[in-house]
């Protein structure tokens, strides 16, 4: 491990991820707005883990709840299979 740990990790893992909702004051989590939730879903409709998106655990919990509410109202899909 090099002496400068931070430089090592930056080189290995790239840019440090940040929680979008902590950084952007205008970003909100709303189950009524499926467009905002789609950024955190895969093409298959699954919830993207926070190790990928960089969300903090507080906002990931709120986001998960919002996605589940939106799924119940058929605003976003539970799954996308290609079949209809």
């Amino acid at each position, binding site marked *: 491990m090099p002496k400068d740990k931070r430089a090592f990790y930056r080189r290995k893992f790239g840019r440090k*991820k940040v929680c979008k909702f902590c950084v952007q004051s205008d970003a909100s989590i709303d189950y009524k707005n499926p*467009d905002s939730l789609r*950024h955190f879903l895969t093409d298959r409709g699954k919830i993207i883990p926070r190790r990928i*998106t960089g969300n903090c655990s507080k906002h990931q919990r709120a986001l998960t709840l919002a996605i589940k*509410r939106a799924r119940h109202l*058929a605003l976003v*899909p539970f799954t996308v299979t290609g079949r209809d």
Partner: protein
Amino acid sequence: MHAFVPKRHREYELIYVLSPTTTPAGATRIADFITEVVGAHEGKIIKVDLWGIRTLAYRIHGFRQGIYYFMRFIGTQGMVEELERRLRISEPVLRFLNVKASDRLVDPASYQVNEEEAKFTPIDEILARLASPEAEVPEGAALEGEDEAHPDKTDDRPVAVVPDVPKDDSDDDDEEDDED
């Protein structure tokens, strides 16, 4: 059995989805009983918004579209229970969701409400548009095809921020797997 629940009013949000085969009279009947239940429990309807007909993300009872109503109201716990009971047994209601908008207790008597905003919009116009053969796609209806309509919207997805994921968390459930 049930403990005494004091009449504590809070603000709630209700969204209900009607089937596209609902008649205007059927929609009015639902609006009427909601108004009746809210009135009976000393609540107040703050806002009613007809989102219109939208494409459902998945089929519900064979329907691909639904008529979305959003409303905000002040009510009590008992009122919400009664409202949900009646929505559950209403045939045209495909889905409903009632959530607490805020934990704060409010006094409905001192709450100023705009009467115009608290009125239920009839669905006649939506049904007429749905019945016409050259019906134009209403706003918010193209939920499934929106990526094609706005291809630039997908660009800022946070998925590609870090291309290589550390190997040491292989025991986690991988959400990305395609299981089927």
